[in-house]
């Protein structure tokens, strides 16, 4: 009896996993995973193999595993270039109110900054600025464009 119930649960979990993974593949259209841009179209590079930006989900400032990987590359690059300072620009898409988006951009830029700091980069070398929705990289009104615009970009200062 008990075993049967356990088996049932296991099967249930198995099926749920199947459904969930089906969902996530269904959502993965082109360069968007869920709501986060995963493509390379707008990306520039601080150095070879070091992307300058990470992308966020709508209204979110949490870092995806891909974003963390990018930021670790930036941290390695910054450790090698000890005299280099950077500004992290935080941006939002056009689908929010202007003032909230300014705050959201600031939160995104700080999320990237905090992660760099956990990899040993001094906060003194990193300044942040939020542009809210004022500086879209892609001016089109489409889900792909919005996902490219929800970003934080690390820019060399000197």
């Amino acid at each position, binding site marked *: 009896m008990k075993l049967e119930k356990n088996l049932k649960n296991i099967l249930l979990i198995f099926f749920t996993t199947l459904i969930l993974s089906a969902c996530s593949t269904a959502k993965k259209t082109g360069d968007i995973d869920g709501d986060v841009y995963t493509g390379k179209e707008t990306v520039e590079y601080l150095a070879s193999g070091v992307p300058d930006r990470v992308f966020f989900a709508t209204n979110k400032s949490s870092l995806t595993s891909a974003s963390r990987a990018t930021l670790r590359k930036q941290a390695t690059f910054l450790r090698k270039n000890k005299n280099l300072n950077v500004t992290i620009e935080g941006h939002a898409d056009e689908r929010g109110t202007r*003032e909230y988006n300014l*705050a959201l951009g600031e939160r995104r830029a700080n999320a990237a900054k905090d992660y760099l700091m956990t990899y040993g980069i001094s906060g003194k070398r990193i300044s942040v600025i939020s542009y809210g929705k004022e500086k879209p990289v892609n001016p089109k009104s489409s889900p792909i464009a919005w996902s490219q615009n929800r970003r934080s970009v690390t820019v060399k200062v000197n």
Partner: protein
Amino acid sequence: MKKFIATLILSIFLNNNLNALIEVDITRGNLDPLPIAVSPLHVDIKSEKIEGLEVRVLGEKISEIIEKNFKNTGLFNPLQKDAFVQKPDIAHLKPRFEDWRLIKAQALITGKILVKDNKLKVEFRLWDLTAAQEMIALAFTTTPSNWRRVAHIISDKIYERLTGEEGYFDTRIIYVAESGPKNQRVKKLAIMDQDGKNTKYLTLGNELVLTPRFNPTNQMVTYMSYFRNMPRVYLLDIETGTQEIVGNFPGMTFAPRFSPDGKKIIMSFAKDGNSDIYTMELDSRLVERITEHSSIDTSPSFSPDGKFIAFNSDRSGLQQIYVMRSDGSNVKRITFGKGIYGTPVWSPRGDLIAFTKMHKGKFFIGVMRTDGTGERLLTENYYQEAPSWSPNGRVLVFYRETKAGDKGKGFSAKLWSIDITGYNERKLPTKTDASDPSWSSLLSK
């Protein structure tokens, strides 16, 4: 502005007839606007010539502005002038009421102007044609260059007499004038009369400027600027053009507004990824922290009595509207509807809060009671936000953006207004694209 008020000598002969019949109800959408005849103001033949001003047609021009103001309210239907049955000067003395009633007019405005010794002398009357009575007779003197404001002041007096509420015609709107491609927008502070005339630019467009708001006397503006790439709240004196940074914050300050007494600026300060609400007293420079929460708290707006503050916060997960006492205590969430809510702005009458709502990919402008009940959505569109109240609390101005195609093609930003009844939605004429409007109070009271 002060000068104008000083030279404006208002002599009011209010004829308070208790049995006057016409009344315009502005609390509902008006599907049957009041037919009104605006006679051209008679220009006195003793008028002198003035350079740069066509005195001969000034009376006609003033009447046209009055007509336009009334038409734009949606509450009045100004009648065609070619049907008018009396010459302006004769009608002004005493209208033949029965003849005017034949063209279906219910109210008549007449007037007379005299330009002499570089002064513009104006008198006007409002007549109730059904009751065959004079409702207002008013006279004032100003400088001739103020002739457009004369038209707006007359409009305000008549609107007030007919609706029982203050008008909103002798007012200005400050906004952000936009130009250039969507990903390289140039933004300047601009100010214009409520009807879109007399546009002036207050900044050159060298740096990004956002969210200008008037102080209660309309002489100061607080706004956000990226001057030297430091996003901060600024204070601008419109008459002298002097600007100063507000406070000494080690990070971005934004979303500024004045307190109702004009003595404080309330705004957000962002630090280490967290935005909270602060006030700064302008005289003493005393800074006070109002909210202390790890969420984003922004878009603060005082109640007109200064006792409460409405703001939006994502402390519940997504953006919602909250109300608290002005010292930051007693925070209460007031929006629980479907969707997310932002940009609360307290009505000058104190009874309503206007807001932006986002739901299922659409943006709405709406109003609700100050406890969040009685939500009414006035307009739905692809993107619109940032409502600002007319001084009488009857009309909202906001901005609306269109969807953009490849490379930003087809993108535009314009100012729109709508009555809180949900009727009378209309685009405001601006010289350029425009956003972030703020409506002044009445310039002359």
